[in-house]
């Protein structure tokens, strides 16, 4: 083991360029085949998007890749000491548990206050730090979940339907943020979604599954693939609406209009 690698591992995290390598994964639960012969790999800096119709096994695949469920068949290699940030579809905290967003963020990783503030600002909800977690709206909760996943400085970010409950502008922001993080930190991103056009624009590799892998490749290749068109007939050849519409202004959190580039945190919107 090299010195650099040892150092990296002491501080947590993996050095492996390939974060996840799955071959021939099969999953059978209660006698029902959920996944059959699924292979995929995720490298550092890569955004891999899993799409598929309802009941295709997308979330199950995520669970297997996360190590939450044992695959019934196949081989799964995960990066050594890999740190994973996981954002589940939705979570509900019982009101009987008094928990502020601040405590929620630090349940696992303790972090100094400025970092928590910065983390929340990054996902666009800077004022929620002391709010009881039960008072958050669906979209706010998604953003807080993302902030928590990022606080652990993950090698791999795993997102289950990241855009759910977030409004359209918010979705753009979330995907821009993910894209920026991938470039800045070099983490890999694995996303599950059925928001085809938005997600496919953000992807390097799209894996279309329906229990088995129907087709895989770059977004434009997948969108032309007959299997894909059969699964998503409405999406058609022009199904990729790349998220490129330009704003000449953005709204801050109070709804006030600000010019693009007016503040540092909004620059990315102008891409």
């Amino acid at each position, binding site marked *: 083991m090299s010195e650099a690698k040892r150092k990296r591992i002491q501080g947590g995290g993996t050095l492996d360029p390939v974060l996840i390598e799955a071959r021939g994964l099969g999953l059978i639960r209660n006698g029902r085949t959920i996944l059959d012969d699924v292979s995929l790999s995720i490298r550092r800096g890569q955004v891999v998007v899993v799409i598929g119709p309802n009941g295709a096994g997308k979330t199950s695949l995520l669970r297997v890749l996360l190590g*939450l469920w044992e695959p019934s068949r196949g081989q799964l290699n995960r990066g050594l000491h890999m740190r994973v940030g*996981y954002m*589940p579809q939705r979570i509900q905290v019982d009101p009987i*548990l*008094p928990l502020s967003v601040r405590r929620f963020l630090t349940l696992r990783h303790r972090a100094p206050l400025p970092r928590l503030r910065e983390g929340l*600002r990054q996902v666009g909800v800077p004022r929620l730090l002391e709010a*009881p977690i039960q008072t958050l709206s669906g979209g706010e909760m998604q953003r807080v979940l993302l902030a928590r996943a990022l606080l652990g400085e993950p090698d791999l970010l795993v997102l289950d339907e990241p855009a759910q409950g977030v409004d359209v502008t918010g979705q753009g922001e979330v995907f821009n943020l993910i894209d920026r993080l991938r470039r800045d930190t070099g983490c890999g991103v694995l996303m599950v979604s059925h928001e085809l056009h938005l997600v496919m624009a953000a992807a390097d590799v799209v894996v279309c599954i329906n229990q088995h892998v129907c087709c895989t490749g770059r977004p434009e290749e997948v969108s032309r693939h007959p299997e894909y068109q059969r699964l998503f007939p409405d999406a058609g050849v022009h199904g990729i609406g790349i998220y490129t519409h330009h704003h000449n202004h953005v709204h801050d959190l109070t709804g006030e209009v600000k010019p693009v580039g007016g503040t540092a945190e909004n620059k990315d919107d102008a891409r």
Partner: protein
Amino acid sequence: MLDDFVIRAVLAGLMVAVVAGPLGAFVVWRRMAYFGDTVSHSALLGVALGFLLGLNLNLLVTVVCVLVAVLLVFLQRRQELASDTLLGILAHSALSLGMVTVAFVEGLRVDLMAYLFGDILAVTRGDLAAIAVGGLFALVLLMILWRPLLAITVHEEIARVEGVPVLPVRLGLMLLIALVIASAMQVVGVLLITALMIIPAATARRFARTPEEMGLLAAGFGVLAVLLGIWGSFSHDTPTGPSIVVAAMLVFVVLQFVPFSRSHHPQVPPPE
């Protein structure tokens, strides 16, 4: 000082309340009230086995409770029966099995009422020492497990992905519940132990902003209930265990009417 049975009773009650309160918060947060009931009902089986084998009762009660708790978790995973059905079957079978076993042990004359409803005034020095050791151990264990337990209570899968060792932590929680049951058995009896865990915790909710505040307040309300209950039991000649639970209930009800509000958004927006 320990010669006075009232002092011993108060000390035993206080020690149990201090652990049962914060642990009760977890029982409430994780919706384990009925689970706690089921496990505590099996304590009598531990008592019977203790007499049968001639071993320390507290030890056997703890062991039996841990075993029942683990069995429950295992059975709940199979999901063939709804959780409440399963708990109902086990709670009452365990209680009946305990009573039948007690009846089988030849020559044993057990004051069943004392085990079912507690007999805090009969606490001996030895009992007190056992409660102190068990309680202290439970308190330390709870402090060690607090953060990981909280993490898996909020969302078990995120916690697992973030590296919380879920299975050991959950087993630790089972051990904690068993320890509290073993020491609380003499104070309020197997039928009422869960009340000592969940009523103070439920009382604390309104006044707490953080999980830690809720745990500490629950301990405080538990202490209050024990003191009021023992005093009431003396002055009105009522059974002590049920009196403590009645006191806890009264504290809960009265505090529901106390106006109390604490701003949930005290934060000044951070400088941008």
